[in-house]
């Protein structure tokens, strides 16, 4: 009798295989919406100011701030009164992530193309020229841009699906051993903005740089040279393969080009403007490293722990008196430094969630911290004559640092909340 009961208890195991483990998976995917290039070109024009969605690169020209909205275009912001900045116009440029300003002309990438726009009247801009296919490195994941179509936007699609579970198809790894293995399966109001830039000034994360009637652009591993002697009609000149890959930024200074890459900083001479040549190189651990320079030193921020790779978060000051052999002078630890800007003896560094830090670099071997303007997470900054414009994902911040020790946010332009 007892044995019979015990055998009955094992019966359910015969139907165990009939039961199926299941998974309900919820996820979102993105569906591209395409446009022809002609449609894209026709769309480049002035539009009323719109909300800023994803702030990117910045350029200051006169009292206008040109702010890239990633892949959408360029906002024109009047910061004559920094406590009350005003968006005055938006130039729709699909696929735009980098730009430069030469006099009255804005050069911007439009996916794989370079577009030249007359911005003499920011409220009435006109397209002057298109250079097709000069930026073939621009890509969209698995989609390549040289098909004649470009992706105008992405539509998010939320999905839930159910399917039988199996160990092999599981996305994530975790241990699955048992006791034993049986089977394995601001307050300040400025009346006027003194910090205007008659010559356009770009942020340190710029990938377009102007020098000697040339525009230099960097892709992931090369430098492109454009002749802009005829400002309204740039001409593609040359491509220079760079000594390092993973190029991030370019900072033209005097006759040299300081190129920031994930593996270090390279200095190229533009004595021959159409064929820049390598002078020297400073290598460091892998990280993101915008760079600015003056006559004697280069200031490089290393930011690790993100897509950049590496884990270093610091300011490296590099002695560049000998351009052929740049030498590390000193390193200062930081939290998560990104873009930076130097104005006289004041160095401003976007340092992650700490905010914007101001340093006195009169003596580069003894840099002293002056002040941290906190409350935001900036990624790039332009500093000029006591005013700074810092870009963060949640806004554009205007900071008065005419007295560095009393530096404070005096104005802000909101960014659309997601």
């Amino acid at each position: 009798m007892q044995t019979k009961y015990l055998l009955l208890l094992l019966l359910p195991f015969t139907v165990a295989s009939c039961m199926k483990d299941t998974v309900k998976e919820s996820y979102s995917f993105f569906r591209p919406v395409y446009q022809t290039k002609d449609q894209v070109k026709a769309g480049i024009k002035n539009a009323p100011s719109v909300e800023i969605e994803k702030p990117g690169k910045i350029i200051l020209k006169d009292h206008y701030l040109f702010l890239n909205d990633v892949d959408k275009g360029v906002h024109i912001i009047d910061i004559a009164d920094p406590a009350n900045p005003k968006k005055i116009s938006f130039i729709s440029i699909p696929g735009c992530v980098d730009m430069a300003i030469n006099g009255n002309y804005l050069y911007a990438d439009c996916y794989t193309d370079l577009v030249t726009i007359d911005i003499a009247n920011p409220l009435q801009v006109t397209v002057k020229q298109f250079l097709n296919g000069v930026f073939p490195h621009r890509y969209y994941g698995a989609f390549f841009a040289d098909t004649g179509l470009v992706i105008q936007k992405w539509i998010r699609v939320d999905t839930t699906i159910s399917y039988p579970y199996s160990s092999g198809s599981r996305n994530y790894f975790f241990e699955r051993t048992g006791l034993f293995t049986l089977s394995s399966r601001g307050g300040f109001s400025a009346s006027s903005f003194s910090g205007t830039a008659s010559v356009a000034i770009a942020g340190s994360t710029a990938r377009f740089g102007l020098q000697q009637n040339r525009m230099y652009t960097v892709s992931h591993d090369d430098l492109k040279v454009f002749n802009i002697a005829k400002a309204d009609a740039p001409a593609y000149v040359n491509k220079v393969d760079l000594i390092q890959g993973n190029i991030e930024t370019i900072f033209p200074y005097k006759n040299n080009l300081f190129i920031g890459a994930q593996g270090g900083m390279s200095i190229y001479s533009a004595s021959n403007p159409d064929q820049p040549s390598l002078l020297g190189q400073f290598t460091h651990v892998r990280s993101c490293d915008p760079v600015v320079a003056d006559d004697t030193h280069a200031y490089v921020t290393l930011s690790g722990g993100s897509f950049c790779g590496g884990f270093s978060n610091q300011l490296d000051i590099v002695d560049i008196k000998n351009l052929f052999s740049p030498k590390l002078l000193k390193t200062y630890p930081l939290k998560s430094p990104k873009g930076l800007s130097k104005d006289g003896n004041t160095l401003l560094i976007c340092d992650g969630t700490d905010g914007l830090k101001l340093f006195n670099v009169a003596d580069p071997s003894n840099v002293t911290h002056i002040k941290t303007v906190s409350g935001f997470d900036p990624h790039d900054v332009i500093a000029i004559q006591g005013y700074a414009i810092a870009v963060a994902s949640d806004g554009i911040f205007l900071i008065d640092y005419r007295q560095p020790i009393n530096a404070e946010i005096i104005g802000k332009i909101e960014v659309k909340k997601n």
Partner: protein
Amino acid sequence: MKNIFIAAICFLSTHLQAQTGKIKKMTSYLMPQIALIDGSSGTSTQIQLAGGLVKNNWHFGLGAGIDYYEMRSVPLFTDVRYHFGKEQKVFTYANVGYNFSWVQDTRDPRFILPPSSNAVKQTDGLYTDIGIGYTIKIGKRNSLLMSTGFSVKQMGEEYHPLPFSSWVWPSSTPWISSESTTVRKFDYTFKRVCFKVAYRLW
């Protein structure tokens, strides 16, 4: 759900404790048990400890254990049993509770972009087990209980992609844009047959 369950357990525990002194006929039970679990994903094991109070043919208690089936978890459950007849050899039981994830490794090996780890969060879920069994008396107070049952374990995972927001190489392409990253959720339902052997200490 988790909070309701914990509150229920606390209430039951307090209630039973309060009752202990009042009802003289009530005795207690405590039994460790080991289980063999079989489902479409394979065979695994489970260890548990259940205990509580006995009144007439009813057992009311709480239990906890470690469930190694696919995703290691710690089930915390109520244990209700009814032993049939005078001899109380044949019994039926029901466990209802909550599975707390106890997964060791949360790295996602598919992604090699630095840093290589992406946040994976395991989520807890329902735990149920119902079945029937047979008791073999051993000595005066002890007994061996063998049972078979049907158990459902629900757990989940949330995959939080590492923000790939590049302030150097900005893009609105979804897989690069941090604003576009989405949480990917997996809700697993594991249906198993389990065979348990328990030793009733008292």
